[in-house]
């Protein structure tokens, strides 16, 4: 997929004017966060489990070379094959080779962000193999040739009417006047269509929520059961996963599973959590005859030990998207690539380059909500600031912004002068801000063209503080002015 991240500003403007998208985002903003909060409240150990989950991944990342070797050995012991791939190109070729050897015509797929990252679908199509997404949301966006707009709810940006139109176009063999008003009718049509695909597929391609070193196992988490029909029915099961997906033991996997679904959808646990190890055993009545793991680096080893090392703890739950004021305003497509929201704004520049993705780390108010809900306690705002620092050092961004930042930095290093200038500014604005807010200000139209700017109190916080104004009536005045 060619990134449209360089056009973030245009993308965001279009998203804000997109009526069905705004309706979907409004629903998301009240659904997921509320359910997450309820699930967390139901489990007294939730915060402690987040600490455990963070520590497990930190330990793995510190010893990733050892864990990858241990994992590989176990996959081999179970009769599977591990294919190491440096980048997207190697991974695509490896998957194609496996499909060709299996004489595959159809590949069923269960949702995998890594498969989006390497754009495997287009590649397989170009080589005469039909890839079929089986997660309902992914199936819909595959038919529409769109990227996912949310990690766990890829078609969240669409209305049911848009889905119905998509199905009428794609399922041309069905009666054109069939009723497709209710979501249930849409689901049943997709279920029937995909059932044929499940039963006829030659290869099943899945991602992995985790890889367990102890047993050489891949973990799959879904609510629909599509990953299970994908890995169980075809003759060959291919897992594509990036190297940081490793966890040490079954116990460690269980701990992370306890925070994953709660953070993602607010469920205690997803409906289906599946642990696959190798191909079918000699006496088994079902299961694949071959089991392959495509183990992909694609930029991860560069992140090890860097300022973005901690991003490798991410388990792709989507909580940071669901709680982000920017994501909730513009949706996932505006970010212009596979990932979105705060995790996308940190990860995308690492994967496609800072130049291409330069707007993304700036698309944040740094409110800190993402870090507060991240099950792996990833310091997302800190890393967004790191990208901004790098951009400043690389002399990126507009001249005005750079000049303003430089001046501010110069001033901020001189506290007495800083306070004097600030006091002057606040005093002048306070004088003119008679009705408490400005609807227009010189040099601030970027702000005031969309909303009013609250007028300052006429005196700086520090100066009021020195005058002893706290806790009493004038203290309230400070709070009112500062907060509102």
């Amino acid at each position, binding site marked *: 997929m060619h990134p449209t991240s360089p056009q973030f500003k245009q993308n965001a403007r279009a998203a804000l004017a997109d009526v069905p998208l705004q309706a*979907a985002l409004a*629903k998301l903003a009240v*659904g997921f966060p509320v359910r997450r909060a309820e699930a967390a409240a139901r*489990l007294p*150990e939730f915060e402690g*489990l987040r600490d*455990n989950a963070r520590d*497990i991944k930190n*330990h793995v990342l*510190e*010893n990733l*070379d*050892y*864990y990858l070797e*241990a994992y590989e050995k176990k996959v081999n012991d*179970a009769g599977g094959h591990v294919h*190491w791939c*440096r980048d997207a190109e190697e991974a695509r070729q490896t998957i194609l080779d496996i499909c060709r050897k299996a004489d595959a015509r159809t590949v069923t797929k269960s949702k995998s962000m890594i498969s989006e990252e390497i754009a495997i679908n287009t590649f397989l199509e170009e080589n005469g193999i039909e890839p079929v997404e089986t997660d*309902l*949301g992914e199936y*819909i966006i595959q038919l529409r040739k769109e990227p996912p707009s949310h990690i766990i*709810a*890829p*078609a*969240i940006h669409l209305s*049911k009417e848009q889905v119905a139109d998509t199905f009428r176009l794609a399922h041309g063999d069905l009666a054109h006047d069939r009723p497709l008003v209710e979501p249930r009718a849409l*689901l049943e049509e997709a*279920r029937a269509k995909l059932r044929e695909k*499940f039963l006829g597929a030659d290869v099943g391609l899945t991602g992995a929520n985790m890889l367990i*070193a*102890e*047993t050489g*196992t891949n973990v799959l988490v879904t*609510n*629909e*059961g*599509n990953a299970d*029909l994908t*890995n*169980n029915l075809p003759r060959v099961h291919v897992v594509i996963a990036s190297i940081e997906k490793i966890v040490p*033991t079954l*116990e460690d996997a*269980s701990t992370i*599973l306890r925070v994953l679904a709660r953070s993602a959808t607010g469920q*205690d*646990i997803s*409906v*289906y*959590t*599946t*642990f696959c*190890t190798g191909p079918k*055993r000699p006496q*088994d*009545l*079902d*299961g694949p005859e071959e089991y392959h793991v495509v183990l992909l*680096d694609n930029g991860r*080893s560069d992140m*090890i030990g860097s300022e973005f090392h901690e991003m490798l703890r991410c388990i792709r739950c989507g909580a940071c998207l669901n709680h982000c004021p920017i994501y909730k305003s513009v949706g996932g497509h505006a970010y212009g690539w596979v990932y979105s929201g705060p995790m996308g704004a940190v990860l995308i520049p690492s994967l496609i380059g800072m130049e291409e993705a330069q707007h993304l780390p700036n698309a944040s108010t740094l409110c800190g909500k993402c870090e507060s809900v991240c099950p792996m306690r990833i310091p997302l705002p800190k890393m967004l600031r790191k990208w901004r620092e790098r951009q400043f050092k690389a002399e990126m961004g507009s001249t005005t912004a750079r000049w303003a930042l430089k001046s501010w930095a110069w001033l901020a290093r001189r506290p007495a002068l800083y306070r004097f200038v600030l006091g002057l500014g606040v005093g002048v604005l306070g004088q003119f801000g008679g009705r408490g807010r400005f609807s227009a200000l010189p040099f601030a139209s970027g702000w005031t063209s969309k909303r009013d700017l609250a007028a300052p109190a006429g005196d700086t916080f520090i100066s009021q503080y020195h005058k002893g104004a706290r806790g009493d009536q004038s203290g309230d005045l400070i709070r009112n002015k500062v907060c509102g």
Partner: protein
Amino acid sequence: MSARDDILGKLRSKLGHLSDPNLTNPALTHIQEHYKNLIPKRGDLDKAQRIDLFCNEATRINATIARLSSTSDIPDSVSAYLRAHQLPARIKIAPHPTLTGLEWQAKTSLMVEQGRGQGDDGVSVSVAFAGVAETGTLVMTSGPETPTSLNFLPLDHIVVVQGDDIAGNYEAVWERIRAKSVDEGQPGTLPRTVNWITGPSRTADIEQTLLLGAHGPQRLHILIVDDPRP
């Protein structure tokens, strides 16, 4: 240089693991310890309470439950379930001794087939390795007597679980699976698939509307067999 050597070499040099060849392998040490992290207290109960918690949690996420005092009650219970949902009197059972030894013909008029799941199976009956009270989760393991396809292809899935096999938390079940692998002479080997199943299949991918029966079963019915006599 192979991709494997390239990736591992890069990690080793970044993590500083090149310098000391006598370093103990911290990964293997950690793996062997099977260290338990924080385990929610929720499932820390005696057997009767554990079964109750399992029932509460499973029904919260749309499973239905029948409690039986003996495996010999299974055919009647299955038959009653089919009638209640107006389903054809035809089932596919797992070739598991708990099910194959039952007097289906004598007790019911059901048509009973056994084997793996097929695309046109309507109702399947399978046997769980364990249950987990913590979240009302069934643990299914694959094997010659327990084909995985029965868990996913039919629209109605009926699962038998023994009351004694309902554990408080996931960790307790992993210990049982490890113990079984030792008994079977393959210590530390997992079955091809272990499925945790918590309620029937669902999706909210269309306008965030929750719908049951996405690709897997639309209904999950659990038969808990537990002889109340001590």
